[in-house]
């Protein structure tokens, strides 16, 4: 395994101080690694991602990136520390144009913002095609492209993604997951929450199973896919629920 980029150490956190949803959760993500969080509803997967992104109050424990402590930093300053966050569903500005979304996201880039925007258009040609369109008018897959482009534009070290394939057709979902795989091959680390656990595990290097706000299990993506117990309890359950 490569060197650790994100280190989550015994984090207890929740939306309101004193009412934790996570109870001492630990996890790590290596450089260029894709790590997926799986578990039943209410397990605290999204909460953990939001805790890293700075949206959730951390009662105790610590979160560090490349050895620097980033616990409790406000969400709007996370980007300075190389963290990008793609929220679930509402992850683009629907009332702004496609290009306007990117211009806004590019404000975090120190210099040559136009080049950063151009780079995203190179990476996602459909976005260039629709750059004048209101982002609300994009198709589901294109929305995820735009959301991911907004996250990547400032060259983050860590991308946090909350259910990037929610609401997409299986084919488009597969494309988005492939896209995430490509991101990671550029030495960007990815922490992912995914409903579609089986598909996500296939592109993941490692995964953590959470239940009731606690670490339950961890392993490589392949090992978890093959684990009969995990398969029965989580993946099967997920298959039924998402069917």
């Amino acid at each position: 395994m490569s060197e650790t980029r994100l280190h989550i150490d015994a984090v207890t956190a929740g939306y309101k101080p004193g009412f934790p949803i996570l109870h001492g959760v630990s996890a790590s993500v290596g450089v260029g690694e894709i790590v997926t969080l799986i578990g039943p509803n209410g397990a605290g997967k999204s909460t953990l991602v939001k805790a890293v992104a700075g949206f959730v109050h951390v009662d105790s424990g610590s979160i560090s990136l490349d050895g620097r402590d980033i616990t409790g930093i406000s969400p709007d300053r996370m980007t300075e520390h190389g963290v990008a966050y793609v929220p679930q569903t509402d992850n683009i500005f629907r009332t702004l144009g496609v290009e306007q979304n990117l211009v806004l996201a590019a404000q975090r880039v120190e210099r040559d913002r136009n080049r950063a925007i151009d780079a995203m258009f190179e990476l996602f040609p459909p976005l260039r095609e629709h750059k004048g369109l209101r982002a609300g008018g994009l198709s589901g897959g294109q929305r995820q492209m735009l959301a991911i482009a907004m996250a990547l534009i400032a060259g983050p070290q860590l991308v946090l993604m909350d259910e990037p394939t929610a609401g997409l057709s299986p084919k488009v979902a597969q494309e988005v997951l492939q896209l995430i795989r490509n991101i990671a091959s550029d030495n960007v680390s990815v922490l992912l929450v995914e409903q579609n656990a089986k598909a996500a595990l296939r592109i993941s290097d490692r995964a953590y199973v959470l239940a009731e706000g606690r670490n339950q299990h961890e392993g490589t993506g392949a090992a978890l896919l093959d684990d009969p117990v995990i398969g029965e309890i989580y993946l099967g359950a997920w298959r039924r629920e998402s069917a």
Partner: protein
Amino acid sequence: MIGLISYLVFFLSGAMILAIAVLGLNLQWGNTGIFNGGVAAFFGAGAYALIILGGPDRPGELGGFSLSYPLAILGGIIVSGVLALVVGIVTARLRHDYLAIATFGVAIALESLVRNAEYLFGGAKGVRGFQRPLEAAIADPFTYSLMFLGLVIVCLLGVYIGLERLVRSPFGRLLRAIREDETAARALGKSPANVRLQSFVLGAMIMGLAGGLYATFYAFVSPQDIRPILTFQIWAMLIVGGAGNNKGAIIGTLIVWGGWVASGWALAKFAPADWQLYTGTIQYILIGLVIVLTLLARPRGLFPEELTVSTATGPDGPVKPPERGTVSTGGQQS
């Protein structure tokens, strides 16, 4: 001495009438979390309805129904309720601050209506000539004013006891549940919009009762009596007393009304002559400061609410649903 006592009776009559209106507001805001920016309208509707229904014939103007006093005051209560029903139905399903704007608008619209529709409501000069109940039978003015104070206190006690029983009943718990978490209340199978509307109308009817008593007290009503400042005074009384607490509402009324009367007296007596024109201005500033400073320094008032359904500390928070605008995180954990 008799002068002081008779003033005290006068003061208490006014204060107790206002306290009834404050109790009506407490049902709406304190118990249900409904914002009413037009207390003066519902108070005024009751006052005008009483005096027109129970008053003498006015040549060329609406009136001459000569209803008996209890019927006339009931008429005022009903008119206020109907007004609230109309406003409530239009705004019930909308964001709460629409109700704030709409109710504030009702008060402005009603004031402009009674000020201008002379043939209906007497215009700027108001409606005079109301014969107060039993006034002819009780010749002595002091005895009469004592009797009237008694009537007001009976009404106040009736409303107080009724509301105390109401807020402790299952319906009262439902009101607080809706105030604190509308979604959860909906999950219980109750229609929050409907329950809120009931509370809003009932509160407005109580304000209508207060308005009717007020019109009886002065045997006269004019557009001056339903200006927006009345709404702000009644708010200040509830906020100082403590929203959600009926006892606090009554004490808050005495404190704020006492302060209002005392500041008016002091300004009239001590302020230089060329400042006399600005007495009202200074009193308005005081009411504004009382509202703002109480909300900042003692948001739960002098007598905080005793009944709660959860860990919440009063209407409107701190336990509140996630507001997107207030930098909350939104969404659910998975």
